[in-house]
């Protein structure tokens, strides 16, 4: 089963993935069979504390892209991403002429926030495609 499906099924907990692995390992131990006379130990978990997950509802979709504006954002500046988005812009201009496309590069290095750009997108765009690498 894919990890994403597991996350969804088990309340999106990477920790539950770990527990699934533990169960598997325990089974292996059972098959192998511990020697009865071995002293039994209890180990403390070395794991830190994960943050809670806040679920976000996805933004509602329109029925069509006619008359809408789509921002194409190079979010990482990785090699080739700008060219890829330029090709995408050319494709949309030719094949979906009723859609306006705007190309932008996110400011800062790849992990930096760019609140100015997010505000611009919120004000002007119906949607955005973000090239996030590699």
């Amino acid at each position: 089963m894919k990890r994403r499906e597991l996350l969804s099924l088990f309340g999106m907990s990477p920790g539950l993935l770990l527990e699934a692995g533990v169960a598997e390992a325990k089974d292996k131990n059972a098959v192998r069979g511990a020697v009865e006379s071995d002293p039994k130990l209890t180990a403390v978990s070395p794991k830190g504390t994960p943050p809670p997950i806040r679920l976000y509802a996805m933004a509602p979709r329109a029925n069509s892209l006619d008359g809408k504006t789509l921002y194409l954002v190079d979010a990482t500046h990785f090699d080739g991403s700008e060219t890829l988005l330029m090709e995408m812009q050319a494709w949309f201009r030719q094949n979906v002429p009723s859609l306006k496309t705007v190309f932008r590069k996110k400011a800062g290095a790849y992990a930096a926030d760019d609140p100015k750009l997010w505000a611009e997108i919120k004000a002007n765009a119906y949607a955005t495609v973000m090239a996030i690498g590699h």
Partner: protein
Amino acid sequence: MGVPAIPMCTVAYKELADLTAARDGMPHLREVFTPHPVGGKTSAELAAYLVNPDPVSGIPITKEIVEDLTRPLSADEMKSGTRSIAAGPATYGPASADNLQELFMTNGMTDYLPIVIPTAEKVEAMLKGTSHSPDEVLRTPLQGVGYTSARWGYTVRQVAVNAVMAGCKPEYFPVVLAMAFVGTLGLFGSTTSSGSAIVINGPIRDKLNVNYGLGALSPFAHSNATIGRSWTLMGKNLTNGGILGDTYQGSQGNQLDYNNCVIAEDEKNSPWTPLHVQFGYKAEENVVSLFGGPDVRQGAGARGAGAEPAMFDQQISYMCESMVGGSGALAILDPLVAKRLVEQGYESKEKLSEYVYKNTKRAVKDFKESFLAPFHLYPLALEGREPYASWYKLPDDAVIPFFPSAKQINFVVCGGQANAFFQIANMNHFRSESIDKWM
């Protein structure tokens, strides 16, 4: 933001994209994947990517984008709220020591070397190495901030469990806590496979028998071996790092990750100010300084390494020319090298840093074509950050310093004086932290 967004990346990062989306609260995010890689492809090849099928969905990419932006949302896609997640059980067992070794290894909680089983008794003994409360939080879990592996929180007790696993003695624990407090834990997950280094200064070096003499960087002291190892285990366990394909993406990995290059400075045989004093601490303070970057390399490979008399200033500069620009340098000098440098006229580390800064140069074109420049340094230039903003305005044949400042060139002295050798870590200084605060 309330705006439909389609993230697009190459198929090589599908699992990471899925897990990141789930952890950031959108487990059903509509993602689009191109073939891998995008870098190095021509415009025509990239144009073909867009009309050919997404390797995951099988739908042509441009068609898929249109569909993803116009298809009504499902009930799952509209869910909101907060969910707590667990990191697994609080304890494992009871089981035999062998089975626990296997269990910890199978679940990615070790470095694949045998560990000391962290029983409650051993953890309690470790906690006696500090006056801090076991439940003191060193870092609170952060939601939605920074890298996914940097969002977990941890307590003094959770750090102690990892110190036990690494084989640390309780008297080492304040050093481990100081490292944990910095928060930049080992096993940095970048595709670049960066490694880490730990510099220890102050009287605690002798109290803990940290080796800074013969074979200082090799496995000849219990404290060097286990303190360094603890940093990697903490990176794996305390912050959920080191999960291959998820929080760890290092393409080739880095052998430094086994021990993180523990360096204790030989303050007695160094002719210079110790590193921690350069960073503003008092000489009698105990301090750990953490560094990170691509590699550690032997100075014996430097141009002019066999010349007589030895011109170590030039050799160090030559070595720096092939480093990753944007990262700093941490030169690790045997006391014999340091003494020779004093003979050359470098009465301080600062003077030597200034020499290396001024004499290690390259053309602007080489800077622009260097590894970090296009995606890391150029964006900084666009923000007006110096010296990058000025460098990008110069002609390609202009000559500029290799390092952005002399402060990024650091020196520590250690070694057994068996030969005049040095090594250079291509690493940045992250932060230094008082060990005494954690006693």
